[in-house]
């Protein structure tokens, strides 16, 4: 709880934005994906803590030096662990499960419904459509 309160103090240092608007937009997108390590559940874009300001500064510096988005993410996860990325990795079994399961459920569910329907459905011509007069 204290951490939340501390973060609300808004200890923002005045920050220089990148001159190139495309680079600045990329930096801001990344800041929304990187977790502030001193706060409870906030990206560094929102956090007022000093460390978040340092982390924002690092993102901008790396982008200005020509780093790709993945290079920035890797740099942070190497130093602070994967915990720091709000976009979890899709590598390994865990990652595939996390990213794949929603789509597997969707496709599997749809296939199941269609399979059961086609097995059950009697003569399509025998079904009389009933228009919905109400909901």
């Amino acid at each position, binding site marked *: *709880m204290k951490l*939340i*309160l501390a973060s*609300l*103090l*808004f*200890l*923002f*240092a*005045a*920050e220089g*934005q990148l001159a190139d608007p495309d680079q600045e937009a990329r930096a*801001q997108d990344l800041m*929304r*994906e990187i*977790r502030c390590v001193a706060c*409870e*559940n*906030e*990206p560094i*874009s*929102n956090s*007022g803590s000093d460390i978040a300001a340092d982390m924002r500064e690092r993102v901008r510096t790396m982008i200005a030096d020509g780093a790709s988005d993945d290079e920035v993410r890797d740099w942070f996860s190497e130093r602070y*662990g*994967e*915990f*720091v*990325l*709000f*976009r*979890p*990795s899709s590598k390994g079994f*865990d990652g595939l499960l*996390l*990213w794949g*399961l*929603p*789509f597997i*459920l*969707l496709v599997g*569910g*749809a296939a199941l*419904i*269609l399979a059961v*329907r*086609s097995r*059950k*459905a*009697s003569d*399509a011509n*025998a*079904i*009389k*459509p*009933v*228009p*919905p007069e*109400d*909901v």
Partner: protein
Amino acid sequence: MIEAGHFAAILALVFSAVQAFTGLRGNRGQSGLFAQLAFAAMVFAFFTLLWAFARSDFSVQLVAANSHTLKPFVYKLAGTWGNHEGSMALWCVVGLGFGAAGAWLLKSDRPVFEARALGVQGILSLSSLLYLLLASSPFTRLDPAPLQGQGLNPLLQDPALAIHPPMLYLGYVGYSFVFALAAAGLIEKRVDRQWAKTARPWALAAFVPLSLGIALGSYWAYYELGWGGWWFWDPVENASLMPWLIGAALMHSIIVTEKRGSFAAWTSLLAVLAFCFSLLGAFLVRSGVLTSVHAFAVDPLRGSFLLGGLLVLGGSALLLFALRAPKLKGGPDWLATSREGALMGNNLILTVATATVLLGTLFPLIAEAAGQTISVGEPYFNLTFTPIMALALLALPVVQAWAWGKADLSSLWKWAGGFAGLVALFWLAGIGPFDIPLMAGIGLALGVWLIVGAGQEMWRRAKSLGRLPKMPLRVWGMTLAHAGLGLFVIGAVLQTSGRTQTTLALEAGESANIAGWTVTLEDVRSIEGPNWYADRAHLIATKPGTKAELNPQKRYYPAARMPTTETAIHKTGTADLYVALGDGRRAAGGPTRWTFEVFVNPLIDFIYVGVILIGLGGALAMFDRRGSGKVS
């Protein structure tokens, strides 16, 4: 006084036990009577708490810990539920209220079914009262009484947050009665068209306040936290989204059961799950198993109590379901391309979306148990939840005209052409000043698609202007809710891809430019309120033809030793200019520079207006007179 309240709560517990016993034995009259007696006793108990808060009676431990004499009167009252114990008391009031309302309003020709529903509701009331009295009693005295209270979390001293919990609880606990109706239907082996007709208004009665409660919480987070956003995929937010999604699925599947008698087992499963997800939400929020920006009253012991309750209640309901579901009858045959098929698709997508939220919320916990710490946040949900839901939105206008049994597919190509044209239009136009990329163009097209689709369906049904007022309330409800969904999508897409965020550092007299606005800091002054003091900045923002004054504050509440941000928002009709005041820093010998977070949030009100329309649509459907009585 508070002892009388404590006694009344124990009395409510006894009455609920009698309600449960007589109800399960099939005595409709007695069970209903005791449901109403239990509610009356609980209202009195809650009133004694309100009274203690109103009079700042610090001999009551809860008041001493959460109130303060300097607090404005409204927030003294709202403080009753601004803490764990008081909010559980509110939970009990609402739960017993639904029992009493059921005793009063249920009028079918199935007294035994009604008695069983009241009996199951009695068990749920009993469980919540046991939890209140044994694990989180608000009725404890403090001796000696302190002269002053410790205050209420200042973040909670806010009108939206004063009514946010009661709204949310009407939704969460409203699903307890839907759960009871489903359990009774399963016990009686009669989840049929008449059952659906009886249960449907109750499912809506929970869905409407839950929608509004979530929107209120989101709006509060928007203007109070100073982060400029409206949804953070925070575990606590996810906890409220899951029952909402299941509730939305239930609202659609129950139509099939009412109109055709199909999906009976699936509908009763959703009715059970909606309340299970409400309990899961309570567990996630109150146990502290997940880190969250607004977890309050975190306590592991209470967590195990809640988890135990969830497992016992949910487990027995699912067991009942497994035993009885195969015995339920189905409706007439249907093809995959039919109204039944379309609503099954809606349900598939909504339940997969719920599973995605559940997975993303619990995955960090599971990984932690395996020795890894990972985070799952906004980027994950944007890439999984959003496209899955988008499928439902894309299909909605096309399939909502489909007939039961078998749909006429001859006009499908017109719809495909219409949507492709819409996307192309948005892409080519680049949406004027906002310069929108392709994905956002698709999103905006989806929003417009939904609104036009809702209107088109209404027109197809009414066929002429003169018949519009005569359309059933349910059809109006559907139209408003689907159009509201469209507005919501437009607002959400623009918020995600069209907003600008800038951090400014200004000294008095200095100006800066942001998104067409020139923002000038006039001065920063110290001001004082009843139980706070603050720095208040005075800014003037100008744009050719417009001028706005903004006064963001940074407040400090000494009683709680805690700062809050009071953002300043100027609405232009098409966007919010949003300013949050940060800290002042003085360079050696120089003037103080103040930092500001400045956002331009285009059409953010569409998000809230959209959800209000969804709630209004649900309310209209609930009050349709055809919703009561017997099936035709």
